[in-house]
């Protein structure tokens, strides 16, 4: 039960219940689909970006509390960032979930740290990183793999 309390931390529950920029954007220039075949979870990320920077970011779709909160945190963290920064943040998050953090805990946001409960539920890893891997794939192809 205490494991569950850390998995479903207050911050995650908050993001799940009141997700940030949870909205379908018609005619968004880019729509990224993040989809987990195992459970049927599926989110669309609606993205407006120029060559340098993400100017607007929303999401919509269906998924468990973990994946939904994670998408909400993603949107909140990446909007307004340069593509380069955004890519670093994606890496940061995925490495943190995989227990190979790139930075010390005190350098992480509370939103990120709220996901530490996932470490005790390895089967939920895919839920947590679902939107992040979709975004990362997109950013890497925009930036070119070798930069």
């Amino acid at each position: 039960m205490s494991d569950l309390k850390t998995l479903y931390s207050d911050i995650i529950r908050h993001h799940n219940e009141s997700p940030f920029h949870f909205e379908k954007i018609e005619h968004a220039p880019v729509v990224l689909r993040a989809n987990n075949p195992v459970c049927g979870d599926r989110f669309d990320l609606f993205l407006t970006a120029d060559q340098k920077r993400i100017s607007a970011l929303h999401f919509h779709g269906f998924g468990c509390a973990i994946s939904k909160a994670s998408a909400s945190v993603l949107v909140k963290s990446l909007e307004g960032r340069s593509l380069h920064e955004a890519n670093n943040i994606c890496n940061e998050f995925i490495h943190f979930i995989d227990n190979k953090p790139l930075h010390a805990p005190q350098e992480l946001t509370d939103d990120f740290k709220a996901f530490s409960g996932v470490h005790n539920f390895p089967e939920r890893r895919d839920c947590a990183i679902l939107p992040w891997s979709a975004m990362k794939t997109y950013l890497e192809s925009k930036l070119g793999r070798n930069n």
Partner: protein
Amino acid sequence: MALPLHTIKDQFPIFKNRPELVYLDSAATSHKPDSVILALNDFSEKENASVHRGLYDLSTDATRRFENVRKKVSDLLGVSNPSSIAFTKGTTESINLIAHGLIRKKLKLGDTIAVTAMEHHANFIPWQQLCHQRGALLNILPVTKNGELNLSGIDSMLGPRTRLLCLTHISNVLGTINPIEEIISIAHRKKIPVLIDAAQSTGHYPMMVDSWDADFVVFSAHKMFGPFGTGVLYAKQEFAPYIEPLNFGGGAIRNVTTEHTEFLDYPYKLEPGTPHVAGVIGLGAAIDFIQQLDLAETSLFTRNLTQKFKARLHELGGARILGQPSNFGSIVSFQMENIHPHDVASFLAQANIAVRAGHHCAQPLLESMGVPATVRVSFSIYNTEQDIDKTIDALAALKRFWSR
């Protein structure tokens, strides 16, 4: 005399090794009784040999036992001819053998294949892909809100160009037991053969394939107390000569020259390579176990558990059950208000309750019912009323946890 159900759980070692386990995922795979595990072990330790080619005792004994399982399977299915039984890897492979080994070459541009909206992906994707490849049409018989087949449209759906109707006996999501006899006879009046996906029924419900007059029946050993990696294809004799192998190799051939190969007859032509000998022997042991049960009794027993669980869910509140089929088996799907099925399953897992969350390899069904995912609970003979109590308690705790 049938084995008494109230002590049957003792025959399943998993529950001795994990006394706390509440296993409600038998529709995915069932646990194995002592007798099956012992048969597998004994085979490895005392008899291990390949079949069909050896002249020494180990191999001739293994061959005799292996071939004898065709008889056991045909008895279980209510089929008179043991040579109608081919061994495969599982339901999925059996269906693909019919799709690509038989129907493909008959299927012309503009022909149709009929399936239902409640098929498992294994009985859906092969037909969808085949239709794509051949320019044929996939007709999908719809499902009502209650989770039953909508038979009112079946007559117009089955036409002179329908080459096959594919139908699950029991839905792996809703538990619906389909009226397959009635449907087979409708199809046969139009001379359309019928494939029955019996993955959820074989070993759990009485089967009478000859009297149903089903043309093809498929199932997997691992869902009926048997081993992984073994399944069955039953094909009516009139089709057997026309089913072509998808794999070629040793053991399935009469003669090979550098230019030409002559194949053996059905079922051997479909079984190239070294078979899963232990799997087939284990399937035989699973059938021996099942033959000690009274399937009319066991199916009533699991139906009653399901009925009780549905009633308790209703009492609990905040749960929405998917479908209300009047004839149902040991499976129920539901959703908890505002809580994603994944979150429900994780919560229950913490209480050692194993349920499944997701689309259960039946995306078309869930889509047609407007639901992306459900929690699925499925019962088998080793489940008890305490399992229901524990699950309902855990769901009540979940509700409290979620509304805190």
